[in-house]
């Protein structure tokens, strides 16, 4: 099962293509986008949403795909479906009038491709020897492939064997990734881990009669022994070691194997996916893998450090492309599977506490009232905030979810040292000193927000403020939003035509919100000047000079939509605007629709303890940025 190679359009054929339909089958909603090439450029011409139909009672993902696509037909007038549709057959019209009686200037599609996170997406368990080494590398590999990592097992994870066995048995992952032992290193412990998995007799999530796919990506010397041990319980694929050496990581082969197994073992057993695979020009890939690919491609093309977030109802995915010690741009992805705006809102409340949410609100509310509102959202996740109180509470929760998810991401997105020097076993346990967090909040060039609470915020300024408050970037940073959550669609389109994908990313997907200048400082009283910024726009107007004031956030009017060079000079050595204490920084930026934001609130953001003062403080922040709150 899988896409017919003869049907796959290669890049050269894509140059002739004029209309492509792309769907993303999310866990709740299937979203269809239609792109068209006209007058020398690609553009988005239609979109449609429908509930995802992978679960009972429909249990056929193609129904949701067809429903979402029908909305495009209805709103654009472009005929996309053949008039004679047979059960299971490709329902889409090819371009032209073949078999269609009435003439129509625009009909049919050249290609249909799709991503998916339906049914909870790709869920994996990973196992390794040492938690902060092979297990962590395996985890990064799984996350980079777009998976939700249900659990990470390691010999030093603090659990007894029987607890591990019980946990593995209860997990029901789609795929299990086993790593461990550098090449030429430990073997016994790796085999021990394989025995543990065998004893647990894990079952896959879908299909009681299929073996669990296991990818072995550990010490190559014991690969066959591991495969022999697990042969009766699992379908084992052997790939290159994800951690061939203490200071070397090789995530690609495992990631590729995950993609292949996802298609052959997971998607093919999900209701309707077999049919859907027959319609698509490319294999279906997990939604986060497509989003991550798009972010990585964009960052490397523009040579910039990018942080992106997709905050959904159940999970928050963060993607980063940041420089390591060798100055290479490294991609990382994390998924906080328990942080979300509806299904997982209870976890956010438990993790941060009600006071952390209340601090963002420009009004007074009792603890119990707030808790009840959040609990009611948890049990009715598809409802929409219909007044300011409900809206601002949701946006307050999003700030905390973003903050928590970023902390999780920064702990995972680490470089393992730029030194190729080989080290011994003893160094494995000291290798933490070679782990360096890659995400530097002072060095980020661009932050991209996606997900309903951000993309569908009533104003772009409120989306900007959520990202600013949640992530708290420092220095000079551009902020943007994915207009309609197009990233998954463009991510898979990039596999077909990278140029088309890049063009649409710039023209239709990314909406620049604004540029923020946020110094970090110490021992400076509120009201004092932190830094002075000189803004040179590309227009003929004179440069603008503005001061960033400690404790104050404000917006500079009149720069919306401008390309400019921003030079920021700290007022003293106690101020850092991204280049080091007291050092001047200059950056070329594109200022979006929200303008230039001067954020003199220190990091980490703090609020007055007194509830009345805190409410007044937040009201002032909202007023300064022109945001209504009642």
């Amino acid at each position, binding site marked *: 099962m899988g896409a017919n190679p003869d049907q796959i359009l290669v890049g050269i054929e894509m140059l002739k293509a004029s209309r492509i339909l792309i769907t993303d089958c999310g*866990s*709740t909603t299937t979203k269809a986008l239609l792109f068209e090439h006209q007058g020398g450029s690609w553009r988005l011409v239609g979109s449609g949403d429908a*509930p*995802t139909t*992978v*679960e*009972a009672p429909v249990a056929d993902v193609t129904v949701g795909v067809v429903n979402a696509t029908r909305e495009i037909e209805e709103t654009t007038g472009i005929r996309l479906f053949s008039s004679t549709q047979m059960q299971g057959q490709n329902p889409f019209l090819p371009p032209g009038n073949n078999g269609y009686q009435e003439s129509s200037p625009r009909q049919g599609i050249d290609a249909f491709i799709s991503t998916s996170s*339906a049914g*909870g997406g790709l869920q994996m368990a990973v196992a390794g020897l040492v938690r902060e080494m092979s297990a962590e590398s395996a985890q990064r590999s799984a996350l980079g492939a777009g998976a939700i990592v249900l659990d990470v097992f390691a010999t030093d994870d603090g659990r007894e*064997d*029987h607890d591990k*066995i*019980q946990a593995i048995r209860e997990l029901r992952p789609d795929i299990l990734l086993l790593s461990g032992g550098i090449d030429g290193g430990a*073997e*016994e412990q790796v*085999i*021990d881990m394989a*025995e*543990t998995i*065998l*004893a*647990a*007799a894990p079952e896959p999530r879908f299909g009681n009669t299929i073996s669990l796919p296991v990818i072995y990506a550990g010490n190559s010397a014991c690969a066959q*022994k591991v495969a022999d*041990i697990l042969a009766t319980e699992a379908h084992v694929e052997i790939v290159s070691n994800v951690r061939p050496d203490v200071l070397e990581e090789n995530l690609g082969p495992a990631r590729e194997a995950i993609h292949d197994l996802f298609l052959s073992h997971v998607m093919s057993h999900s209701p309707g996916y077999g049919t859907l695979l027959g319609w698509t020009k490319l294999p279906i890939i997990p939604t986060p893998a497509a989003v991550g690919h798009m972010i990585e491609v964009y960052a490397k093309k523009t040579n910039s450090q990018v942080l992106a977030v997709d905050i959904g109802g*159940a999970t928050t995915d963060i993607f980063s492309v940041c420089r390591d010690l060798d100055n290479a741009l490294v991609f990382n992805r994390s998924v906080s599977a*328990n942080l979300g705006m509806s*299904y*997982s809102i*209870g*976890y956010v*409340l*438990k993790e941060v506490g009600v006071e952390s949410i209340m601090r963002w609100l420009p009004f007074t509310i009792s603890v*119990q*009232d707030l*808790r*009840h*509102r959040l*609990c*009611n*959202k*948890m*049990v*009715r*996740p*598809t*409802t*929409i*905030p*219909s*007044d*300011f*109180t*409900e*809206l601002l509470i949701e946006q307050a929760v999003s700030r905390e979810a973003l903050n928590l998810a970023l902390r999780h991401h920064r702990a995972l997105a680490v470089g393992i040292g730029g030194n190729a020097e080989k080290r011994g076993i003893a160094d494995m346990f000291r290798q933490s000193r070679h782990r360096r967090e890659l995400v530097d909040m002072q060095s980020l060039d661009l932050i991209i927000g996606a997900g309903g609470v951000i993309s*569908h915020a*009533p*104003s772009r300024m*409120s989306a900007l403020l959520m990202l600013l408050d949640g992530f708290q970037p420092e220095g000079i940073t551009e902020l943007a939003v994915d207009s309609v959550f197009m990233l998954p669609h463009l991510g898979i389109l990039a596999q077909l035509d990278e140029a088309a994908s890049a063009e649409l990313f710039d023209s239709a997907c990314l909406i620049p919100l604004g540029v923020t200048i946020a110094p970090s400082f110490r021992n400076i009283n509120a009201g004092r000047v932190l830094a002075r910024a000189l803004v040179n726009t590309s227009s003929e107007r004179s440069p603008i000079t503005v001061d960033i004031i400690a404790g104050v956030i404000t917006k500079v009017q009149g720069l919306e939509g401008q390309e400019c060079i921003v030079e920021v000079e700290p007022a003293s050595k106690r101020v850092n605007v991204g280049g080091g204490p007291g050092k001047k920084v200059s950056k070329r930026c594109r200022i979006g629709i929200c303008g230039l934001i001067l954020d003199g609130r220190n990091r980490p953001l703090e609020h007055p303890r007194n509830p009345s003062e805190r409410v007044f403080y937040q009201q002032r922040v909202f007023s300064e940025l022109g945001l*209504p709150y009642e």
Partner: protein
Amino acid sequence: MSLSPSLAAQKLTRIQRIRRLPVPGQINVQPGDTVTAETIVATAELPGDVFVARIAETVGLEPREVSETLTKQVGDPVIAGELLFQHHAFFGFIKCEYRSPVSGQVELIVPDTGHMVIRGEPRKLQLSAYLGGQVNRVAENREVVIETTGAFLQGVLGVGGEACGTLEILPAEPYENLKLAHLPQSSQGKILVGGTAPSHAVLERLAAEGARGLVVGSIADDVLTGFLSYELQAALTGSETVPFTLILTEGFGNIPMKLSVMTTLLPLAGKEAAINGRTQVRAGAVRPELIVPYKPEEPYDSTPLATESSLYVAQTVRLVRAPYLGRQGEIIELPEAPHTLPNGVTCRVAQVALDDGELVTVPRANLEI
């Protein structure tokens, strides 16, 4: 076409429940058999827990040395305390041995590590019918389908698993906070329905008396936390250790129970009922339920109500989000074009006349049928 969810409150409908074993086992009934809620319809043996005997490390010998001289082979039974390995050294003066800490059966011996995997005694599982009714079909040594007729009610959130008991309707109005004074002399073996926002004391007394279930409109979150002994973090429930199953029909806070619950259940007081608090709020949502089986005296429409249906003018709806949470009204208009609310959110809306006459504009996503 947008669809709005509904939580069922049906006076009489045909109900089927699939009773499924986690592993193949033995089916004890046949199609056509009449069962009660307590009838054991299927049994199975679940694999026992696994114990990994790390013999080589324990006795301090090489794995190969250990594996070649074990006293048991794969498939052999083992009794706790039984000798699995013995080694003599230095002319017999040094003896090391390993005795099994568990009973079970040898499942695996791994020569490379000198480990023995022992699977413990299997655990017996007995699966009840959960509902009084008839066996509709059986399948694959794993599944029994029970069918019945009766009243079917869904809540928005439940905690606790399956239980059955005698239905009792409490003398509390749907909007009244449930108090001790509303409770009967004894709640043992009963599933009680009525009122809203019960106090800690009410739940404690029901637990002490052996109640099987409670259905109320809403609850304060701190009272639920006390009942569970932890904060609920996700609407994914059903396996909690609680003294009885609890179902909320509306949500959190002080929200009146919807009247249709009382009107549906009041005539059925005294009958045997089945309750299940299992909740899973995702696509393909599972909501907690209360079922009261009974045979109809007259012909009835057995078509189950749809879990979703489209809205129409003059339809009665419930509003399920603040500021109108728990209110009921009638749809006056369904504008086609999206509407921008005062808070800036743009969505498809409905104009609803509330039960007190107030006219409000609300997102369609905030309506329940």
